[in-house]
């Protein structure tokens, strides 16, 4: 138990540092801003209670906000992502349900399942985040393009990371 908490803590810190130090500095012509820290929400065990997930999501978002100087922006997007995760898990659940103590991993449920899972959560998160960032509907399609390209990048990263995690 303690061991797994420690492991999660280390992974979270690593993801947040990676986000703040590397990904926040990536600017491909203003269209690609990957936010890979969403993986924190993807990693949390299936059976966690929804309220705890929401609070973890809020705190994660707030942490990113504090360090990137945009109070509330990432927090609202991650809280939304945390809110939809239980519904997503229920909709895409495997035929015989989740085992007790399972984590949503590529190893257990396969590549296609994990791809679907991560794409839904990441797109929800990125959509909320980018539209809150521009805070207007005037540049609707420009923002949509940004959401699409950034999601593509984030999902690719998450899949690689998950693959690496699985390989261990």
């Amino acid at each position, binding site marked *: 138990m303690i061991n797994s908490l420690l492991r999660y803590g280390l992974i979270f810190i690593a993801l947040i540092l990676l986000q703040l130090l590397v990904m926040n500095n990536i600017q491909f012509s203003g269209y690609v801003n990957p936010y890979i820290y969403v993986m924190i929400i993807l990693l949390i065990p299936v059976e966690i209670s*929804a*309220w705890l997930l*929401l*609070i973890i*999501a*809020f705190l994660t*978002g*707030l942490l990113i*906000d504090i360090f990137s100087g*945009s*109070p*509330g*922006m990432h*927090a*609202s997007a991650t*809280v*939304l992502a*945390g*809110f939809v995760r*239980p519904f997503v898990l229920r909709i895409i659940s495997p035929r015989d349900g989740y085992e007790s103590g399972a984590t949503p991993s590529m190893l257990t449920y396969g590549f296609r399942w994990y791809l679907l899972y991560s794409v839904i959560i990441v797109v929800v998160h990125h959509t909320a985040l980018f539209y*809150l960032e521009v*805070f*207007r509907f005037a540049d609707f399609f420009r923002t949509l393009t940004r959401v699409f390209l950034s999601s593509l990048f984030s999902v690719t990263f998450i899949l690689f990371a998950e693959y690496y995690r699985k390989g261990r």
Partner: protein
Amino acid sequence: MRNLLNFLARYHNLIIFIILEGLALYLLTTRNDYHNTRVINGIRAISQNVEARIYTARSYLGLRKVNTNLVEENIDLRNNLERLGRNGGHFFDTLNDQVFDQQYRYKGAEVIGNSVNRQKNFFTLNKGRKDSIDVDMAVATSEGIAGIIVGCSENYSVAMSLLNLDFRVSARIRSNGYFGSLNWDGRNTGQAILSEIPQHAPVIEGDTIETTAYSALFPEGLLIGVISDFEKSGSDFYRITVSLATDFRRLTHVQIIENLRKTEQVELENQFQ
């Protein structure tokens, strides 16, 4: 209470979500200059839009009143034109020039003091002897007659209101020309009494009452009001209630009317009395 607890137990995830999301959005819209400005501008735009709509609706509702005023003004101007035309066709006489046959001179003034709740009411105007205003000039509004100047100082003058028991003016029914004497009975600020109209005269409710030139103060044909009621008084005359055209409760702008030939008329009349 149990229902409330059930509700909270059932929807606690949703409630926590709403609280956290609300908190995040609150932070977003208050702690970021850009988002804050956007929100404030949005609210301002909405409120301005609503205000503009309210203003449009209100001005639309006021159109009836505006229309009535315009029609009245139009009629008034047409009558003036008619009268000027009768005066030998000189429309633009403004000078005190006897050659052009001008009889009345108009001056604008503002009412700066007014009373309607006494038996003898007066109002004060902001023009005085300096503006060549003098005692015994007539005062009218664009709606109808208002009073007579009874006292002047350098800069101010006081007029006896029509709503004064001492006020008397010669008046006639426009449609048939029967004339009598109009005065106020001290009761209703919207009504005056026209007496001395003989009973053989045809009197109809709604007929217009206007001034005559007999008093040498008012020009002929100025509106006083319309007949709202009449009854026989004694065996010879009607007692006619006239509802006044002028609203004395909100006198603001008045015209002071000077009869340039008053002295001539009065002096001539005095020789035979």
